[in-house]
């Protein structure tokens, strides 16, 4: 944020802060390592507030749970901001010195009265006010979020609404205060840092900045490459739909099961002229490919680095030889380059990393030797005398402020695209569980005493209204398709709210139901909000 694509705080700060808002995150199940750090904070006296439509197992640890309606995050955040301003708790000195756009923001949130927020979110007004004031008054405070914020058609606005709260109260750039997206894998942060997003080069550097583009072109021996940003995943599917994209090279992703509106995704992938999949498993997507490139596992069969949610770059070492035929990603890519006419040689992982360090200022000081000595280093680390950066944006508190000021963004509430109606009266939200990972490629091969397979979780009240019992198979339909799935009665869900995961695509293709309404800036689909109906399946008349 403010030009840096990473969480601002370190894990240690979560242990020593005074208040944590987990917003759209069931970290206890989906980020269990981070949650351990968070719990140390809670045990040490930190107040925990959970904002989530479901009362998750994370929310059970919270002092206050705000069970908002799905997709009403901005209404809540804006109303909190209004309360903070009206209570005189805005950090006016920080705002005037270190931010821009406050007036427009304040005008925008003025329309978000507690009454309106209660109507949009379902959360009682008094509780909204209580949480707003608690956050503003805390000496140190953090907001942490995950996919509950980002898997929406207005994901970027959701994030901006949370950042606004941090700027409003001066809770960023100081030890123990921060704004933190939690990353769902050991190297989601690293993937973005290395430029695996359409507009960025390694080191989160702007591809469309001619100076930067030139720097890379020179380093790569005068190589030519586009100076304009490419497509993100959702745009690629749109391009396939238009016929503008006919060949696809996929590395370590399973879109045939992970994309929203799965029927469409599979149809488009199946219509490609040429599909190459590089993966450690023969995923559903790989099974559709013309060429499969078996890869070594990144965490045990390869050398390299990963970057976690606190921006810490850590070494990964090879412990095992990959199985016969599987090759290191670097080997595969270099071999491809050679066959395409460019001999890149056979660089080691360290050589590739050193090249990255020579081009990415924020990684410049992270020699392998230093990563080992210091147990990983948090970026930015500009040179080899620098020990890394525990938290970001301390610059905003310097006199005078260093670098650009942090902008407020006035954002408006915009409810989920898939509206509830008489035909589709129930809100389905999707998510993950402790024992499984995404589409199950990596987890369904082994058993877990917790794992019970896919089910449609609904409240006891809804089950009674529909007339179904626990374990009974029902037909779930959205505007896009239907699946049959067993009901599991979940007392922590409120009437009108249902939950499914995408862990068991072979059993139930949850993404047949989800909508691919996509945030134009981040390219993320609104997995969190579908409108569904639930129908009993009529008993089969036994054949006589």
């Amino acid at each position, binding site marked *: 944020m403010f030009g840096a694509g990473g969480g601002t705080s370190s894990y240690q700060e979560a242990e020593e802060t005074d208040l944590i808002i987990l917003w759209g995150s069931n970290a206890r199940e989906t980020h269990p390592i981070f949650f351990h750090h968070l719990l140390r904070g809670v045990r040490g006296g930190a107040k925990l507030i959970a904002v989530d439509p479901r009362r998750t197992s994370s929310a059970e640890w919270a*002092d*206050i*749970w*705000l069970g908002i309606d799905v997709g009403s995050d901005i209404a809540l955040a804006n109303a909190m901001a209004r309360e903070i301003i009206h209570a005189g708790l805005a950090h006016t000195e920080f705002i005037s010195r270190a931010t821009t756009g406050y007036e427009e923001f304040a005008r925008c949130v003025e329309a978000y009265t507690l009454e309106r927020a209660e109507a949009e979110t*379902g959360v009682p007004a008094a509780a909204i006010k209580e949480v707003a004031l608690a956050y503003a008054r805390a000496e140190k405070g953090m907001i942490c979020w995950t996919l509950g914020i980002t898997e929406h058609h207005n994901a970027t606005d959701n994030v901006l609404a949370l950042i606004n709260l941090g700027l409003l109260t001066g809770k960023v750039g100081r030890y123990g205060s921060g704004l933190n997206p939690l990353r769902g894998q050991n190297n989601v942060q690293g993937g973005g840092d290395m430029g695996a997003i359409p507009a960025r080069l390694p080191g989160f550097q702007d591809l469309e900045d001619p100076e930067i583009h030139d720097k890379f072109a020179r380093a790569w021996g005068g190589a030519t490459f586009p100076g304009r940003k490419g497509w993100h995943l959702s745009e690629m599917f749109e391009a396939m739909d238009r016929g503008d994209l006919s060949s696809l090279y996929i590395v370590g992703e399973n879109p045939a099961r992970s994309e929203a509106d799965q029927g469409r995704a599979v149809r488009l992938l199946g219509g490609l002229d040429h599909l190459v999949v590089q993966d450690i498993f023969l995923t559903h997507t790989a099974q559709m490919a013309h060429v499969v490139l078996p890869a070594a596992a990144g965490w045990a069969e390869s050398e390299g680095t990963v970057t976690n949610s606190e921006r810490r770059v850590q070494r990964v070492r090879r412990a095992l030889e990959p199985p016969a035929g599987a090759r290191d990603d670097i080997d595969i890519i270099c071999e491809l380059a050679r066959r395409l006419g460019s001999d890149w040689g056979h660089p080691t992982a360290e050589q590739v990393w050193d090249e990255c360090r020579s081009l990415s200022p924020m990684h410049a000081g992270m020699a392998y030797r230093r990563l080992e000595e210091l147990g990983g280093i948090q970026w930015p680390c500009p040179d080899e005398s620098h020990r890394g950066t525990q938290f970001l944006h301390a610059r905003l508190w310097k006199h005078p402020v260093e670098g650009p000021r942090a902008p407020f963004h006035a954002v408006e509430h915009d409810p989920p695209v898939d509206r509830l109606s008489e035909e589709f009266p129930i809100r389905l939200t999707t998510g993950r569980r402790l024992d499984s990972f995404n589409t199950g490629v990596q987890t369904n091969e082994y058993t877990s005493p917790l794992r019970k397979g896919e089910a449609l979780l609904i409240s006891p*009240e809804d089950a009674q209204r529909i007339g179904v019992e626990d374990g009974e198979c029902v037909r779930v339909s959205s505007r896009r398709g239907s699946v049959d799935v067993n009901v599991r009665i979940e007392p922590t869900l*409120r009437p009108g709210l249902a939950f499914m995961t995408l862990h068991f695509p072979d059993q139930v293709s949850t993404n047949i139901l989800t909508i691919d309404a996509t945030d134009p800036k981040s390219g993320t689909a609104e997995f969190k909000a579908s409108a569904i109906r639930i129908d009993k399946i009529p008993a089969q008349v036994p054949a006589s």
Partner: protein
Amino acid sequence: MDIRTTGGPATAEEMAAVDGLLGEPESLWEGGERRGSDDHLAYGGRATRSRRHLLLPVLHAIQDRSGWVSRGALEYACRRLSIPPAEAYGVVSFYARFGLQPRGALSLHVCDDIACKCAGAEELCAALENAHGPSGVVWHRSPCLGLCDRAPAALVERAGMQHKDRQIAPFTLAQAESILGGGAWPEPATYSMPRQAQPKLLRRIGAVDPESLESYRLHGGFTALGRAEVIGSDAVIREITESRLLGRGGAAFPTGRKWESVAKAAARPHYLVCNADESEPGTFKDRVLMENDPFAIVEGMAIAALATSCEKGFLYVRTEYPLARRRIENAIAQARAQGILKLEIEVRRGAGAYICGEETALFNSIEGKRGEPRNKPPFPVDVGLFGKPTLVNNVETLLNVVDIVVEGGASFAATGTKDSTGTRLFCASGHVTRPGIYEVAMGTPLRALLDTAGARKVQAVLLGGAAGSFLTPDQIDVPLSFEGTRAIGATLGSGAVLVFDDTADMKQVLLRIARFFRDESCGQCVPCRVGTKRQEEILERMLGGRDGDGRSDVLLLSDIAQAMRDASICGLGQTAANAIASGLTQLKVLNV
């Protein structure tokens, strides 16, 4: 928290038992019905978890109501207190009192420990086994119930809306049959103190009405507290220090020094804990004091809290002492109602775990956890109950405090020896004609006590209970003082004096002690968990006469004993081999 037990939901009766203690649930999230606001809002977290310490009282309420703790009831308790069920299950299964399988409402616990064995408990148990099947279904063998002066003893309980429990001693087979057949329970006997010269601590026993504050006042009650309030905290601690009183719980730590540490501790609040978890086999003095002079203990606690500025007091009494518990609760209530007692004192029930007499295990138990001892340091005076500075004193210690404040520390120290001041209570039982509690000046020879209690043809004396050691007849001139017993490698311990005449089967006594420690080891640390088990196995093998080579077994036992002494976390493991070692080496029980 999200992990649920596999049992069904709690019954209405179980929920009522829990709610009776915690109040009605205020929301769906606390286990109640769904209210409108529950859909979008829940409070909990720290506020709910801060009631974690109520887990044991809640489990007692369930056990009292149902006779066991079902999975459904446990899950409901967990929901109410925000405790992961797996963790709560660990607590339930730790304590002997709580049943995890369905049981009848009536349960009969028959003591088969050392003193009761001397009084025919084995024959009683054999008859019960014959008629009603093995222990653990209708009737249960129990470790020492603290009624050794009237052995054999039993504890009977009936679960239900009107939970009842009562100690019965002496207990007969006819009574057992009548009770198991649904008959009435015998009324508790009134305590009669054995005759002895000029008791001091015991002077009110039998004279004062234990249920009447007025009666206690007429016997000079609460003058000490009044004086303490006048002279103030520093002066009280000075008197205690001058008295050179050593703690009577077993560890003999200087009371004045402990009080001073707590008084000076910066952290707040300070807690006071009266350790009334008297569970050392052969020990019953604290029970007699609580049953017969409860106001004095309350007064002692009030003085201790005043001197060390404790904000809150707890009295932790073993669940097997129902009458003592009721008398203490009554005394606290009366003293509070009269405004004499400003300190808030909560009475907490143990749940059948000897280890909870260890002070840090006791803290964990009050906090609603398994009663596993903590490593020391930090010591309780710095980091005790709920992590705060805590003063822990035994019942008898607090009773001494009352007298010291009135008569002055110097006068108190005039009795006894230089290093062991004052008088001490001893519990004489086993083969004596006049069992009971005796108060003697420190330094009195054991022989004098044995003569008063009526011991004849003494084969051995177990001094200090199962954690103490055996004395031979030629050692019974030992002076009863801390230094006197230490000189012969023994200990006063809890004040238990178990006497065995020439008819006693010492092999069976040693085995019972080994079984006791194996059963009561909390299992937390390896030396004790494995050591107590191996000790019992080896002893069984030796007594069974198998393998012949007793000498190598004795060596093995002494190796295990050394490992337990050196490496156990707490006193249980450190002393679990003492009695057996002394039995083999001093008494030559096995002639090896």
